[in-house]
């Protein structure tokens, strides 16, 4: 299916208004390659028809599928060594220090099929054990959200095939935290019980999610237009507790988008710390 004439402008406006995703001129191929499958599935002969169908959708489900198609990302366990070095040496020990005096909360803002959220749960467990305080891991509540209910269905199942399990996961972690079920690896009940998933659109108010001691919003905002980035990070600032960290993807920055955080560099990972005075 080819994108012709004014169709790009129509789709661009729709995607920006409804999904917060910015499309510059020259990005026509992104619409064509990523949305054509969806348009065809819906029986549309052209992007003009697809646009009308998208406008008429009142359930929000199609909007979710459009965001999903436009932002599809690779997801695997312990993605990005620098980030996980930060988590192992700073992020998780700090969470466990706080957990000694009460429950703490972590948010994986684009959880997809669950690998990031479960990676945090595994690292929390390992770190708590190495501190000789395994019980503390139970006080770290991890919330994973995503706009795609189908991805979340798979995240909640916590079952991965041989290829997914090999990407990013050491043999030791696989043995310790997964049980083999034929050709599938299922996350252990203990780790699973520490992670909750729910469907959530980042364009909606974040207040309902509550406050967090650490937020991961990695490789999400790169797709968003500048105004929406500012708006999103402003709203995230309201749910990150003072002194706590927001982590973006390795290629992303908060510079120019929020004054509410202070960058803190640990080796090659930048954590954005929520300022304590408002």
């Amino acid at each position, binding site marked *: 299916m080819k994108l012709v004439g004014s169709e790009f402008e129509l789709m661009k406006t729709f995607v920006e208004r409804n999904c917060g995703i910015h499309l510059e001129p020259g990005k026509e191929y992104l619409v064509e390659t990523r949305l054509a499958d969806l348009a*065809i599935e819906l*029986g549309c002969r052209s992007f003009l028809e697809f646009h009308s169908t998208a406008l008429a959708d009142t359930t929000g489900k199609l909007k979710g599928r459009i965001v999903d198609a436009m932002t*599809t990302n690779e997801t695997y366990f312990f993605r990005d060594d620098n980030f996980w070095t930060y988590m192992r040496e700073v992020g998780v020990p700090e969470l466990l220090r706080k957990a000694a005096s009460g429950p703490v909360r972590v948010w994986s803002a684009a959880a997809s099929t669950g690998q990031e959220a479960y990676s945090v749960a595994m690292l929390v467990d390992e770190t708590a054990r190495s501190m000789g305080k395994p019980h503390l891991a139970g006080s770290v509540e991890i919330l994973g959200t995503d706009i795609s209910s*189908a991805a979340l269905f*798979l995240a909640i199942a916590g079952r991965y095939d041989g290829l997914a399990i090999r990407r990013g996961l050491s043999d030791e972690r696989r043995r310790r935290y997964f049980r083999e079920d034929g050709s599938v690896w299922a996350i252990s009940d203990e780790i699973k019980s520490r992670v909750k998933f729910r469907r959530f659109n980042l364009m909606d108010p974040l207040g309902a999610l509550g406050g967090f001691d650490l937020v991961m919003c990695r490789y999400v905002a790169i797709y968003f237009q500048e105004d929406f980035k500012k708006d999103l990070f402003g709203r995230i600032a309201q749910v990150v507790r003072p002194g706590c960290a927001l982590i973006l993807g390795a290629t992303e920055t908060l510079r120019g988008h929020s004054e509410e955080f202070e960058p803190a560099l640990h080796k090659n990972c930048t954590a954005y710390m929520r300022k304590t005075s408002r």
Partner: protein
Amino acid sequence: MKILSIDDSNSIRHAVKKMLDVIGAEFFEASDGLEGLEMLERSGKMDLILLDMEMPRMDGMTFLETVKKDPRWKDIPVIILSSIAQRERMIKAIQEGAKQYLTKPFTSEQLLVKVVEALNLDEEIP
């Protein structure tokens, strides 16, 4: 949950089976449209069919047209798995009643998300 994969490539059917194991699906396979029809006759109603387009003996489009005309099978959702070069045929397949399509090559996550959506397994997600 019974899923029938119709594809003339052994390696694709094998890979799809491994992917579908993640959601605990009962897997059935056929190497062309004719064998697919035989499998439907033999194994009763399927919950979902994954269908390749280019196959010997009976291609995907003929299989799809046959299934959609048969009252026993017309409501079974069909996902087309095919190459990008066949996009025009995909459009026709959707018009003929296929529910979704996925371009090869695909990852297990891409396939599973489509399967979950086609089977409405995600209806209860909070």
